């Protein structure tokens, strides 16, 4: 089987500024991977390139061997870092919308998650609390049977209990051949569910290692290592 995501010499320039610079990287199947780096290190740029929302300046990015296109979007389930749904839609309408859009959307799984959250199907999205809005978005994204889940800051705006719920949701819903790429600043919170972490710095790869390799080699958590490497 092909790697689920492959970048070769991937570069994205804005004027003279390199958001990503000559990034070469391969993500294997069946892993949960943390995409880490300080603000402006290129995390979201990489994610947008993977989803075909940006076009590389140079080099290429392949999903399952294909450049981002409708066929790759079928197998990538993407959670952007901001709300992407019409806030005036009712939850029930959003469910129909998603199931229209994606063949691999499981209504049953979505219903189950929304039931657990006690989210009213008649409510309009904009009436939900910030936490419930984020959880609803995640529930939709995790209800797809995708090969690659790309989650941009899934736990940013929610309280610690909700974070546990979100991590549990991710662990419960991905299948073991799928890959989950999670970008976040809250490393300590998600460290134990990750196989591997990728550190980006100034648009380049600073580190790509297994969490337990880092702990064995440095005798410290990924969070502590991150604070050391990126000390301001």
């Amino acid at each position, binding site marked *: 089987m092909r790697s689920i995501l492959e970048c070769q010499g991937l570069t994205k320039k804005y004027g003279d500024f390199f958001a990503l610079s000559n990034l070469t990287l391969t993500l294997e199947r*069946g*892993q*949960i991977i943390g995409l880490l780096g300080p603000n402006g290190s290129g995390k979201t740029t990489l994610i947008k390139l993977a989803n075909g929302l940006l076009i590389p300046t140079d080099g290429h990015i392949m999903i399952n061997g294909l450049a981002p296109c409708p066929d790759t979007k079928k197998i990538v389930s993407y959670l952007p870092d901001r709300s992407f749904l019409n806030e005036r839609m009712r939850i029930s309408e959003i469910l129909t919308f998603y199931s229209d859009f994606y063949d691999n959307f499981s209504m049953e799984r979505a219903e189950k998650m929304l039931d657990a959250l006690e989210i009213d199907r008649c409510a309009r999205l904009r009436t939900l609390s910030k936490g419930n809005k984020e959880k609803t978005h995640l529930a939709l994204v995790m209800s797809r049977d995708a090969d690659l889940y790309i989650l941009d800051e899934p736990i940013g705006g929610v309280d610690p209990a909700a974070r*546990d719920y979100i*991590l*549990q949701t991710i*662990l*419960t819903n991905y299948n*073991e051949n799928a890959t989950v790429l999670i970008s976040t600043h809250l490393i*300590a919170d998600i460290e*134990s*569910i*990750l*196989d591997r972490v990728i550190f980006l710095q100034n648009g380049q790869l600073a580190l790509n290692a297994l*969490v*337990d390799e880092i*702990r*064995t080699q440095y*005798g*410290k*958590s990924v*969070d*502590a290592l991150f604070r050391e490497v990126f000390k301001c």
Partner: protein
Amino acid sequence: MPWDLDNDRPIYLQLMERIQHDIISGVYQPGDKLPSVRDLALEAAVNPNTMQKALSELERSGLVYSQRTSGRFITDDKALLRRMKRELAEEHIQQFFDQMHHLGFSDEDTLDMITEALKGEKQ
């Protein structure tokens, strides 16, 4: 409830220790079937691959064994369990004495204090 994990040591090691402890202390009985990797990973709130690694390592130590289709089981080998229990107890004692040395107590002082403490407990 996610399992309590230290920040500075490999996660799979800590999972091994925790399961080993549960086996030795009788949470799991000899011959019991262990929950699936996925269920254990969910319970601990850790990555399933990491849990898989911890269980494979425990298999190598002989504490658990897997049966092709029906899952993983705790060993029936009571002698092995007794030996592991003993080893773990020795480790705890060693750590305790090390700490007492750090505080500046000799082995004799420490023993006296233990005897005192036991007397106090009995009263």
